[in-house]
């Protein structure tokens, strides 16, 4: 039940941002579908199976990478049309700006404690690792299936 809700919410988020990115309607529906599937997989791995958020993100993003790769083949369009909007629900936005707020609080009055420094560094690293996991996951099919000698 929680999984189904996660799938639907992630699909809504992917479609919303897909429309902001001006993806035509006939493709944006697929963004929602694979975005929901990827986020649902991450949720299932992280919450139900105790995977770390970073590793779960990598697996979820790889699912999105492969689905968008084959959808791109099927419709003869660039893969990134599907992949970009689909990974948006997994972007660690909250971590990202919490890092910045944490950095500002470090220099505020009563701040500068070792715990704050540790907390801020941990959120910063989490942000970086999750984003790296997303980009690597999406790039995997191209790196594995579509190897070619550089043309430019």
């Amino acid at each position, binding site marked *: 039940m929680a999984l189904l809700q996660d799938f639907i919410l992630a699909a809504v988020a992917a479609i919303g941002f897909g*429309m902001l990115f001006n993806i035509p*309607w006939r493709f944006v529906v697929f963004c929602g579908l694979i975005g929901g599937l990827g986020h649902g997989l991450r949720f299932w791995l992280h919450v139900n199976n105790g995977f770390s958020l970073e590793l779960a993100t990598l697996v979820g993003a790889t699912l999105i990478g492969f689905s968008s790769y084959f959808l791109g083949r099927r419709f003869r369009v660039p893969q990134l049309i599907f992949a970009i909007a689909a990974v948006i629900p997994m972007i660690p936005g*909250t971590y990202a700006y919490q890092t910045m707020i944490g950095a500002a609080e470090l220099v505020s009055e009563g701040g500068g404690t070792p715990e704050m420094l540790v907390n801020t560094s941990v959120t910063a690293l989490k942000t970086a690792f999750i984003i790296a996991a997303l980009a690597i996951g999406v790039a995997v099919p191209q790196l594995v299936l579509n190897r070619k000698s550089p043309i430019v």
Partner: protein
Amino acid sequence: MTPNVHLANVVELSLWVGQLLMQFSAESEVVESSVHRLGTALGADWMDVTLTSNGIIVSASAHGEFRTRSRRVIDKGVDMAKILTIDSLITEVHEKHLTISETKHRIIQISKQGSCYPEWVKPIMVGAACGAFCRMFGADVFTSLLTVLATTVAMFIRHYFLKRHYNLLLVVVITAFSASVILSVARKLPLDFDLALAQSAAVLCLVPGVPLINAVTDLIKGHVTIGLAKGVKATMITIAIAVGLMISFAFAGLGG
């Protein structure tokens, strides 16, 4: 047409296409291969493409002649529909052997192509997306609905300022501030909802997801300087979000 005049046209068109792709936030790999595909389809033997963080340089060579040109690139935000039409245009040039003038005509059409959706739909859809984030963080339905409302208003404000060419970072500060202030005011009305969750979900509409992903993708595929530039830009926007939030927290603290 003499070879050199022909080459000048090839360079002009492929440079133009590369510029459009970069403007609409395509990843560097896509830009390079598209420029190369178009140039060779139009009759060059070889294309060399150099991308910088805010410019593109293209060299075309054929029959021992060569031409090089560069162009500045301004960021115009993500527009997948244009990337899509440019890609299908290149495929068409390859398969149907369009002439230089036909191709030029099509590129002019693409650069004038409007949006797939009416302008007022986008803020509402992004609002719905942030409402979904809020529910995902475990908020109740009422909190999520307020987030939808605040985000939608904030996105309209963002659109208003961007259209008037305010600095992007300033616009992000203003948008994050207004989303957060709307929610703080609603909390004091008093409506009963989870303010912290709503605020953290509402500003997610501003997180530069595409530049962040593109930054790492470029780094993975060997475009290190562009990847770093995109990453720094995305970080600046994230800082701007935090600044907007912190200003609003300071204001919310006034008068208890």
